[in-house]
């Protein structure tokens, strides 16, 4: 693999580590199987690309895209908490709805960003090549997000979200408004995914209606790879694990695509990812079953 390929894989891996952190919040901390991600990732891309193409400042556009992601998560949470729609189904409904919404936002299936400014080329110093600077900037963004998340989840409010996912009955008995906690967690999770989508569109030359397909699967795969590489219940280690997982997963894909001896072809990757995620979904259930716990 060339340095160029390596840095490219690192760049995409870092962007998807934001998705993975979002997925970690919904699937692991809140125990909310959230597929909204497949819609909120392209939503972030669509909002950012459309705004930038319309002449808005890329930073403002990225922030608005992040907020759009948060709103998507909020609605999924609301469907579940208020309308009592089963979590998985609520997120599928939102994901489907977002497909139409994203098309509406873009007004066409894709919005290219070729000559337009992006957060990357605006900040880029002369001395560095773009393919070096992009992953470098992303390292800072991802680290900042990780540290902010670690801090937030050790505050009273963040602890309430973790308690809600771990034992909702106990959380309520301690005065936690668990419905609100789910909404907050889902908003935070999908905000990160929206941010990832916005950054993805700005590194890949635009947004495309199909850019979200399989996002959740990649996010989950990253979480699983991370958890098996660095198993830990401590939050600050778990967030590192998830980031490392996203990057390692991306390198694995780059490696598989760039080497003949593994024998994997591009079309096999979805299968490999699907198997990984299946294992991820089943293992916690088996674990709960073995320890004789039941939900309430």
């Amino acid at each position: 693999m060339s340095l160029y390929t390596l840095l490219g894989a690192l760049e995409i891996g870092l962007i998807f580590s934001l998705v993975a952190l979002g997925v970690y919040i919904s699937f692991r901390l809140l125990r909310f199987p959230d597929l909204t991600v497949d819609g909120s990732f392209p939503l972030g891309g669509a909002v950012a690309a459309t705004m930038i193409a319309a002449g808005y400042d890329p930073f403002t556009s990225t922030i608005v895209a992040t907020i759009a992601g948060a709103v998507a998560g909020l609605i999924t949470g609301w469907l579940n908490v208020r309308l009592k729609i089963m979590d998985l189904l609520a997120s599928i409904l939102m994901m489907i709805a977002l497909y139409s919404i994203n098309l509406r936002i873009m007004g066409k299936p894709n919005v290219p960003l070729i000559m337009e400014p992006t957060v990357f080329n605006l900040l880029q110093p002369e001395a560095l090549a773009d393919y070096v600077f992009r992953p470098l900037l992303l390292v800072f963004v991802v680290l900042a997000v990780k540290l902010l998340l670690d801090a937030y989840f050790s505050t009273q409010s963040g602890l309430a979200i973790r308690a809600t996912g771990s034992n909702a009955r106990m959380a309520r008995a301690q005065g936690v408004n668990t419905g609100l906690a789910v909404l907050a967690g889902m908003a935070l999770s999908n905000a990160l995914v929206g941010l990832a989508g916005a950054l993805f569109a700005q590194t890949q030359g635009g947004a495309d209606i199909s850019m979200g397909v399989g996002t959740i699967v990649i996010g989950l795969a990253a979480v699983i790879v991370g958890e098996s590489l660095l198993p830990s219940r401590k939050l600050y280690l778990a967030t590192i694990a998830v980031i490392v997982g996203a990057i390692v997963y991306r390198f694995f894909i780059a490696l598989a695509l760039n080497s003949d001896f593994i024998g994997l072809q591009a079309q096999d990757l979805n299968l490999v990812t699907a198997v990984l995620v299946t294992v991820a979904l089943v293992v916690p259930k088996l674990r709960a079953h073995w320890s004789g716990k039941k939900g309430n």
Partner: protein
Amino acid sequence: MLKATDLRLTFNPGTPIETQALRGMTLEIPTGQFVTVIGSNGAGKSTFLNAVSGEQRVDSGTIEIDGIDMTRLPVWARARHVARVFQDPLAGTCEDLTIEENMALAKMRGERRGFSFAVKPALREEFRAQLATLGLGLENRLSDRIGLLSGGQRQAVSLLMAALQPSRLLLLDEHTAALDPRTAAFVLELTVRIVAEHKLTTMMVTHSMRQALDVGQRTVMLHQGRVVLDVAGTEREGLDVHHLLDMFEKVRGEEIDDDALLLG
């Protein structure tokens, strides 16, 4: 003071499995009183406690605590006034969180949760001191996941947690039933100490007649969703376990074969 008036609750109404769990349940507990609650299986004890805590909405009747109408409030909104320890040691704590994080959650029971760190050094020292009173060595395990503790240890911590923040009512639903006899005795002793220390208004469901008479100042027996016996003071002092068993028989209209079990 708790004032529950004419509570009625029917599960699965209009179906073959319809159960009238509460049928005119009325009970007043003055501030500072420790009441023990007994009754056969299915008498409605847990349903009553759940109604008071808000986990179960009643069909009719009112629940007031210190004059505040709680009848329509959700669990989390009542938590400001009501503290609980569950029967299942796993139910009262978050196994994924550490001991100190669990205690920090309880420390903020019923209060607005903001963006300051949940476990601050001063708080940690307070938790450590509290845990030390248990004599279980837990004061050295503050950052251990609470899921690593035994049922008895978790129940003891749950009791401490219930008293970290003032409450107007403490609800204990057979909170020693899942423990081995020695641990159960330890947790009961701890209960009596904590209730006395904080002068808590307390309602404790127990399946042991002995406990029901020895602990607290008043004993209430439920049957078919209402109070059938309510004794305190000298009348209660004159009662023995066999009196309670006679009462049981009378209300159930049947013999109790397994005295040993109930005497435990």
